[in-house]
């Protein structure tokens, strides 16, 4: 970290020189980033980074489990009415979202759910899952859409039957878990295993570097020519993001999220008379969840990975807090916020610019103040957010080879 900062300063100097010398051409000479801003920029990398192995999931990183998880992700038979797969809401062609404000459930009713479908690229870098962080692991989250009556509405028995009844799935299961799909009486462990395979797959969904990452790297190694390729408007937007906009305080680190929860004054009324309690409900949910990291289904014998859950504090301020979303690929995942209320990035920036201070109720973020950005500044900030789109994405659903039973 220290070393990187040193390098960076050199990079910045070199870059600032180039910016100055090209000022005559570029009309608006850009001041180079201030040292503090420069440090903020460096903190948003390196990228991309593989997801570390999850000690609570014994098949995390296991190739057969990843293949099983991938097959399940795209398989509508996971829902008893065979009309809903994970990919129905997390569409590959929409950066794993559905483009709706709030998701539609399954079955005949297709109920409107309370929340927006988030994208799943880089989801494995998170620590809490769901907008309220109601799950403390990827695998325990994956159980929710499977079991929820408004979504897939499946049961453990249904999932165990699916795994057992399909030769390919059964073969992958046996290879990944080293045993045959458990019998009916132990269906719950088959269900949890299916969720762990799904999680192993989701952990592989890491997107490649973006134009921003190229700038960051260029600054770090002092490559002024490469840094100059980054567009000027985005450069000004980045200065706002990491500087007076204070965005990077919450949208922190390589994945542009501190992994925690804040109240940014978004309304959280679901319908007249019913509010989304946000993080307050999430803490209640994760504590009560028998699949949490402190429970019997975690494969981490030390329970060290459950430390966050163990130490959770709950207070009134948690009402109306939602998870700080990653901003990587945010250009591709409209509409925005926990209920998809804002249609465009421009509207998001307007929210931060005009911020209704009264709505940021008593426990809201004292940090947030209306930024009162000019139109040009708002455009710059949006231009910056667009440079967080990865240039490459791994193939989501490569044709799997046939499963060959190992060591049987």
């Amino acid at each position, binding site marked *: *970290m220290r070393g990187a900062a040193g390098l960076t300063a050199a990079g910045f100097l070199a870059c600032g020189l180039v910016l100055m010398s090209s000022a005559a051409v570029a009309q608006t000479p850009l001041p180079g980033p201030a040292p503090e801003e420069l*440090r903020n920029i460096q*903190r948003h990398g390196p990228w991309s980074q593989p997801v570390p192995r999850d000690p609570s999931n014994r098949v995390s990183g296991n190739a057969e489990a990843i293949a099983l998880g991938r097959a399940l992700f795209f398989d509508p038979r996971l829902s008893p009415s065979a009309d809903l797969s994970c990919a129905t809401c997390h569409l590959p062609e929409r950066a794993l979202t559905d483009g709706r404000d709030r998701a539609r459930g399954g079955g005949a009713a297709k109920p409107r759910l309370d929340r927006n479908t988030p994208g799943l690229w880089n989801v494995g870098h998170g620590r809490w899952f769901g907008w309220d962080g109601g799950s403390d692991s990827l695998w325990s989250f994956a159980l929710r859409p499977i079991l929820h009556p408004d979504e897939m509405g499946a049961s453990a028995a249904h999932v165990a039957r699916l795994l057992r009844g399909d030769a390919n799935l059964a073969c992958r299961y046996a290879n990944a878990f080293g045993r045959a799909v458990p019998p009916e009486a132990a269906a719950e462990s088959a269900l949890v295993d299916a969720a762990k395979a799904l999680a192993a797959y989701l952990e592989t969904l890491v997107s490649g570097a973006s134009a921003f990452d190229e700038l960051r790297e260029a600054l770090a190694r002092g490559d002024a020519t490469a840094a100059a390729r980054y567009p000027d408007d985005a450069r000004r937007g980045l200065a706002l993001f990491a500087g007076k906009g204070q965005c990077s*305080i*919450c949208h*922190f*680190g390589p994945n542009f999220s*501190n*992994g*925690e*929860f804040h109240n940014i004054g978004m309304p959280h009324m679901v319908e007249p008379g019913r509010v989304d309690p946000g993080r307050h409900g999430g803490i209640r949910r994760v504590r009560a969840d028998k699949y949490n990291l402190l429970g019997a289904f975690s494969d981490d014998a030390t329970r060290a990975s459950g*430390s*966050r859950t*163990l*130490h*959770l*504090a709950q*207070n009134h*301020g948690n009402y109306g807090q939602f998870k700080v979303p990653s901003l990587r690929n945010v250009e591709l995942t409209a509409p925005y916020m926990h209920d998809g209320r804002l249609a465009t990035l421009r509207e998001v920036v307007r929210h931060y610019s005009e911020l209704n201070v009264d709505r940021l109720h008593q426990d809201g*973020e*004292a*940090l947030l103040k209306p930024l009162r950005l000019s139109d040009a500044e708002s455009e710059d900030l949006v231009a910056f957010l667009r440079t967080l789109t990865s240039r490459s994405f791994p193939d989501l659903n490569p044709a799997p080879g046939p499963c060959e039973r190992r060591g049987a």
Partner: protein
Amino acid sequence: MTLKHCARAGCALAALLGASPGAYAACDAGPGVLRGSTSRVALAFRTDPPAIKVGELFSLEAEVCPEAGTSVTGLRVDAGMPAHKHGMNYRPRVSSTGPGKYTATGLMFHMPGQWQFTFDVETPAGRERIHVDYTAQ
């Protein structure tokens, strides 16, 4: 209260309790040691990891050095960002590891910026509150 005073008080107490001479060394300044004091107690602590990472749980080991003749009966640890008017999202658990010695686990600074530790030291004569500032980057 000066650093020396603390060291002296610590040593006096250590002698009183028959502890080994090095037992209160943590109350001296040293690499990675953070300190704070009131007129009646001083406190020295070390965080693990030494450089607190934003968004990662950390723990700390604290040693309380009361003025001679006083004992320490308990310690509470908390932290917050005064400028943002919020505390931590996690509640640390404190356990005693020896006379005047404590370990706190489950702390997290979830935003970069100016944080402040608050230590409440319980003594038979009442509670002493010590604040220590910390900048998380």
